[in-house]
């Protein structure tokens, strides 16, 4: 991954929509240019979070499979 996250949210074990709501909270508190990463084990979030990132006009840096969880990374562009 090229960019180092400015904020990491560990939402493993939390269920939909918990991880997405955590991401939105971090987005609200952050500033343009921030890179926010969410760790999650919830399958629904894999679909919900990228949809929200796109709709909100931000950048989806990537979705990465980790051991036993996955990581969604976004960049705050607005």
């Amino acid at each position, binding site marked *: 991954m090229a960019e180092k996250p400015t904020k990491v949210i560990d939402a493993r074990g*939390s*269920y*939909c*929509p*918990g991880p*997405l*709501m955590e991401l*939105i909270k971090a*987005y*609200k508190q952050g500033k343009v240019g921030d890179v926010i990463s969410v760790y999650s084990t919830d399958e*629904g979030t894999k679909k*919900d979070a990228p*949809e*929200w990132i796109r*709709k*909100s*006009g931000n950048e989806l840096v990537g979705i990465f499979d980790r051991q036993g969880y996955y990581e969604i990374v976004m960049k705050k562009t*607005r």
Partner: protein
Amino acid sequence: MPEARKRALILGDGAAGTIMANKLRFHTDPSQLEIKVIGNSVNHYFKPDGVMIPFGFKNHKNSVKPTKSLFNHGVDYIHDTVTSIDLENHSVRAGDTGEISYDYIVIATGDRFSTEDLPGYNEAAHHFYSLEATLELRQKLAEFKGGKIVVGQASIPIQCPPAPYEFTFQLDQYLRLKGLRQSTEIHYIYPLNRVFTMPNVSSFVEKLMEEKGIMVHKLFNVDSLDPVSKTLSSLEGEQVPYDLLILVPPHKGQKLMTDSGLADESGYIDVDRNHLNYRDYDNVFVVGDATNLPISKAGATAHFESEYLANRIASEVSGNAFFESYNGEVACTTITGGQEAITLFFSYSKPPRANFQSKSDYFLKWTSSDTYFSAMLRGIM
């Protein structure tokens, strides 16, 4: 030598605290367990009627009872406000009462509306989440002559996640009955990319919304509202003007929980999802809306949790083995409009299925305040 009488202390006198106390009384011998409840409400309001009262579909007088009248014989009710909790010393402090010690504590203080998180909310928005606000909204709807109504929720989580769509369907029905539906646009906003948290229920509800001509705005996370231009703006960059805004306020857990170190800034308490105890304290439990469990904040949840927990504490007090766990079971009946409703059953591992709606389920919902006050709160079901 007989064992000393144990003391159970329940904080909160809403749905969870009342059901818990009354159930625990049924399951235990008063000579073995003293049960005290501390709560600061004067009246107990049956909140599900918030989707009936604004439309005159029910009279609010049947939805309220004096709190202190709802505890069974053998439950000691103290009307007071808890100001601090000290888990290490097994005690709490309350305003006039002072210090109270316990052997078991059950926290059932629910949550609160954090309108400070959304500037302008109090001037601009109406809601149906408290009796006072519901009666104001009833008045507002009575004066309404047509225009644009926006319905939704300011954030997640909220109490009773289906209530916003139930309200919207009731609103549609009410406007049809009043002959105002043609001259009114109903806009429904929702934070996720669907109309309800649970995907299979969401597709059922979304189809009904389409049939009823309700306009849906998905992925709408409320960012701000402007009471002057009457516009609601989302974080995603969308703006929706309104004539009447009906927005469920943002929720948080009680500040007392954050201040006492039991919860983070959200105020919701982290509990073991299968045993309902807080961290590794085996005498500290949390039930109802005060938890951060990944299930609906609902009276039905409080009911199922209390059934589990009352049995557990009773077994411990009487020295019996207890092997059960709470699996996240919830059952709830939700209105889908036109005097129809669906009943959803779900747990941590089983998502609900929404198959068909029926008039009998609506009847069940309409009469649920009677069942609630006479049986559910009393701990006999």
